């Protein structure tokens, strides 16, 4: 089945926020932001900006009638900062003009005087100065301290993990239309319509029902519009509310890069102990998360780091420490994987270090310690599937790992300046929002008298294929053709109190709610059908292929007839239902509980070729066995696996999100922030889906697919590292990501560089 909106996309008709026809007298808002990473605002002069012809207004913190503070977890972030700026790109004022160009011009006429204050960009430094957000968390399993004695080998090390820009191709944007009674309709590219609604209401002192948020689709989100879309929607709303005119705010690419938060950089220490047989007995890790200037979702991201710190392995004694550190960077935020990838990178690094010390292959250790059915995580939950081992074994056999390894060894023995490497990357990812209360969703389903169906859920379509999957689920549940089903925009007047579309669970939650709604309508229609057929046993009535089936036989009653007759018989043809994932709980005092509905597992083998003279590499192949449960739409799922993988590969290799010591983003356009292009993609991506209905509470036994494949990308780091080792076996390489070609060269030729340096050349290791 094709994507439900495919035809609109290929015709260029698909509507995004600013594609809707222009309302009359629309105004354009532009953001004036802080040029320094930390400082006290001494004065702000907006006179010249305001005097520019075509400028309608300039709004600052003083113009916010009620709450200037916002944030889902901790409301610590000002919408417009008044006293002390905390990062470069922090909004201070918005300029509203009759055209975008005029508004842009006027932002340059605002004069700001700031007294600069000391800045922190490094999380460890922040921690040492007590600059933390929330409290440090510690997860414990077994007894690490006494386990060290039983280990035959203990190694320690540290990881420096880079951030990542979402680079959704559609930048942040919102258009706000004033309505009667000072109400607002907000078109926003947000993954979290309810947060946007609430924040605007609180900012303006309105009731939630006065603010309608409508989302048709996003041009990519990847987590970057989960929390942070709300900021821009709120600023547009502020302008629309004051001026009484429609206002549009679209961030330019450079503003978006500068002003919005990214994936969290981490700095982590690990200590790992193994037996001579390669069994991991103890693992201790400390994660210092670079949270940026405000809380945003950092503590939740941190929690997912804690949950995933042992990835796909059972380690009987673990102690995991993690802390969110406040720095003067834009607030780091959600991004695909949500703290899981950083955690997994560290344990994989620890395993690599053990393997390199023992001079054995990484996968020997990985294999020995894989999770088995019933094994416990540090947070107390036991894994209810054996697919971790199943996907590993299947990958090993289907793709013939021994042959790959031999082929690569052979290649390396006969090649000098190019080397190959491979790595196996198992993943085990917990599915559910870790804040249990978020695991709820609603659906609103209408059947019209002509038999057509309208469905609204609390999920947002952002390319993950939600609408397509909901339509497929509905078509199956109703027993009718897809052409009868329309998926509506996500709208706070039709669905209230939504959770964000995030954590890979949007289809699980909203799909389940849809199934419940359809069941209600079907029950009523089946009773009607029974009456018309003159039978009593409604349990023997079904609908398939738009026909009523009784006791396995097709009858003359059609779906269309039922819809019409239902209305005449005064039967409710609509349903609004609610779903909450059962059985989830987590006790933060004990740090134990059952936070996940289930786990998604999979194994990837990544192969690369490295040019050791130039530092450049080619990803030859990524071969994956992924546990997908029963796919609702394999086309969409394959896209999610490939897309997630590509972003993971990019994060580990070419996406170099550098800030300088002034807290200034150096990667400030697409020329110096490189994301995977079509040429970067692996020559071969082989994906095998492990079909499996062992433990998924998702619709029709499907499983979440948005985030887990991202983490296969981590394998590429270790594959390149293997190739580097083959070229320079004596060097101990760092566990620093991303492993850009530049970094590869710097590490391969560290000695030479140091010598050149001592001769006064100005080449430095980053």
């Amino acid at each position, binding site marked *: 089945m094709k994507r439900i909106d495919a*035809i609109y*996309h290929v015709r260029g008709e698909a509507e995004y926020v600013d594609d809707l026809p222009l309302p009359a007298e629309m105004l354009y808002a532009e953001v004036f932001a802080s040029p320094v990473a930390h400082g006290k605002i001494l004065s702000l002069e907006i006179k010249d900006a305001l005097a520019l012809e075509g400028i309608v207004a300039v709004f600052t913190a003083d113009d916010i009638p009620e709450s200037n503070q916002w944030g889902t977890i901790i409301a610590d972030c000002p919408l417009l900062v008044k006293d002390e700026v905390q990062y470069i790109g922090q909004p201070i004022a918005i300029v509203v003009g009759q055209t975008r160009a005029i508004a842009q011009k006027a932002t340059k006429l605002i004069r700001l005087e700031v007294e600069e204050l000391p800045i922190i960009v490094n999380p460890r430094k922040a921690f040492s100065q007590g600059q933390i957000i929330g409290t440090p968390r510690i997860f414990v399993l077994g007894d690490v301290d006494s386990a060290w004695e039983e280990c035959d080998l203990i190694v320690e090390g540290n990881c420096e993990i880079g951030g990542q820009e979402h680079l959704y*191709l559609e930048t942040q944007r919102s258009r706000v239309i004033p309505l009667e009674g000072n109400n607002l309709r907000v078109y926003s590219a947000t993954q979290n319509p309810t947060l946007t609604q609430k924040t605007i209401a609180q900012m303006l002192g309105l009731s939630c029902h006065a603010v309608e948020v409508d989302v048709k689709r996003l041009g990519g989100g990847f987590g970057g519009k989960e929390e942070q879309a709300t900021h821009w929607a709120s600023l547009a709303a502020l302008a629309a509310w004051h001026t009484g005119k429609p206002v549009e705010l679209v961030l330019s690419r450079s503003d978006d890069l500068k002003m919005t938060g990214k994936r969290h950089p981490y700095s982590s220490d690990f200590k790992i102990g193994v037996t001579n047989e390669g069994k991991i007995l103890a693992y201790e890790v400390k994660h210092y998360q670079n949270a940026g200037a405000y809380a945003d979702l950092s503590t939740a991201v941190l929690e997912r780091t804690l949950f995933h710190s042992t990835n796909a392995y059972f380690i009987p004694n673990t102690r995991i420490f993690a802390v969110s550190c406040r720095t003067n960077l834009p607030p780091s935020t959600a991004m695909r994987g949500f703290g899981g990838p950083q955690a997994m990178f560290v344990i994989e690094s620890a395993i690599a270090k053990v393997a390199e010390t023992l001079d054995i292959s990484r996968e020997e250790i990985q294999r020995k310690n894989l999770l088995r059915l019933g094994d416990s995580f540090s947070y107390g939950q036991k894994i209810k599937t054996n697919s971790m081992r199943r996907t590993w074994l299947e990958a090993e056999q289907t793709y013939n790992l021994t042959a790959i390894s031999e082929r690569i060894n052979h290649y390396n023995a006969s090649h000098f300046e190019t080397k190959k490497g491979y790595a196996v990357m198992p993943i085990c990812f917990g599915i559910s929002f870790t804040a249990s209360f978020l695991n709820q969703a609603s659906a609103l389903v209408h059947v019209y008298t002509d038999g057509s169906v309208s469905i609204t859920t609390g999920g947002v379509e952002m390319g993950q294929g939600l609408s397509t999957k909901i339509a497929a689920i509905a078509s199956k549940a109703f027993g009718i053709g897809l052409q009868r089903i329309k998926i509506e925009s996500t709208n706070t007047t039709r669905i209230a109190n939504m959770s964000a579309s995030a954590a890979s669970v949007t289809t699980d939650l909203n799909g389940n709610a849809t199934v419940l709604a359809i069941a209600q309508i079907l029950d009523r229609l089946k009773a009607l059908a029974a009456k018309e057929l003159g039978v009593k046993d409604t349990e023997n009535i079904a609908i398939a292929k738009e026909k009523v089936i009784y006791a396995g036989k097709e009858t003359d009653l059609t779906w269309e007839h039922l819809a019409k007759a239902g209305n005449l018989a005064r039967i409710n043809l609509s349903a609004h239902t609610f779903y909450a994932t059962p059985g989830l709980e987590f006790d933060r005092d004990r740090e134990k509980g059952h936070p996940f509905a289930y786990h998604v597992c999979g194994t990837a083998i990544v192969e690369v070729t490295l040019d050791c003279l130039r530092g450049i590499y080619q990803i030859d192949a990524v071969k994956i066995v992924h546990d997908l449960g029963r796919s609702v739409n394999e086309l969409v799922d394959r896209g999610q696996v490939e897309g997630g993988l590509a972003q993971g590969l990019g994060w580990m290799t070419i996406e170099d999100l550098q800030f300088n010591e002034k807290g200034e983003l150096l990667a400030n356009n697409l020329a110096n922030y490189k994301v995977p292009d079509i040429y970067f993609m692996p020559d071969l991506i082989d994906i095998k889906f492990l079909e499996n209905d062992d433990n998924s509470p998702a619709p029709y036994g499907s499983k979440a697919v948005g985030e887990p494949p991202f983490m296969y990308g981590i394998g590429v780091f270790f594959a390149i590292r293997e190739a580097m080792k083959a070229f320079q076996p004596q060097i101990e390489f760092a566990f620093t990501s991303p492993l850009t070609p530049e970094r590869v060269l710097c590490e391969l030729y560290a000695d030479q560089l140091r010598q050149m340096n001592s001769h006064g050349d100005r080449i430095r290791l980053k």
Partner: protein
Amino acid sequence: MTEEEQKLSPKQRSRRNFLGQSLFTAGAAIAAPSLLNSCQNKTVSASNALVEGETMIGLKINGQLKTLNIEPRVTLLDALRENLGLTGSKKGCDHGQCGACTVLIDGQRAYSCLTLAIMQEGNEITTIEGLATEDNLHPVQTAFLENDGFQCGYCTPGQICASVALLEEVNNGSVSYVTRDLTNPPELASLSESEIKERMSGNLCRCSAYNGIVAAVQQAAGQTPPSPAASIEHSQVG
């Protein structure tokens, strides 16, 4: 207070007052931190009259001649999206770095954010909206549809326009960076995957629907797409 104002909440009233006062004091921007100017200045594109700084130009777009008044510095992309309501072309960067704004100018692909509208007078411009007829998709559109050449769809209009031009370029015997034998340019039927990737590398897709995109170009080139995307069509539920 009028009767209508009494129906409003205090907050709403204060907003009214604020607006009233601000409009009153428009221009005197010294005392208050922020103010509203009068909205009576020029209204954007509301009339056909030329505003100072604007020029009238004629553009041939999707077979139709359109006249518009714009400032000479307006890019083709902004003219399409904002003056002509052709919002199929997308702005991903406005700097010629993503390809989302790709259109065809006299059959050749161009980043519409990198060219001024005024420079394109007299040229044939084709946008995503002009590729299909009422009932029939362009073969490249069909190929993207059938090979799942997108996820969020934001890059898609640009990808499709680029692919249309690519086919034409190959037909005209153009070579690329990866063409081995420059005297023997590739043909559509045998256009390799790496040729396709090289020739599509000016269009980013952050969703990374790249496999589908390659498959779509292969299909449009008359090849059988080996991409799995094409072959798993009926394995979904229902």
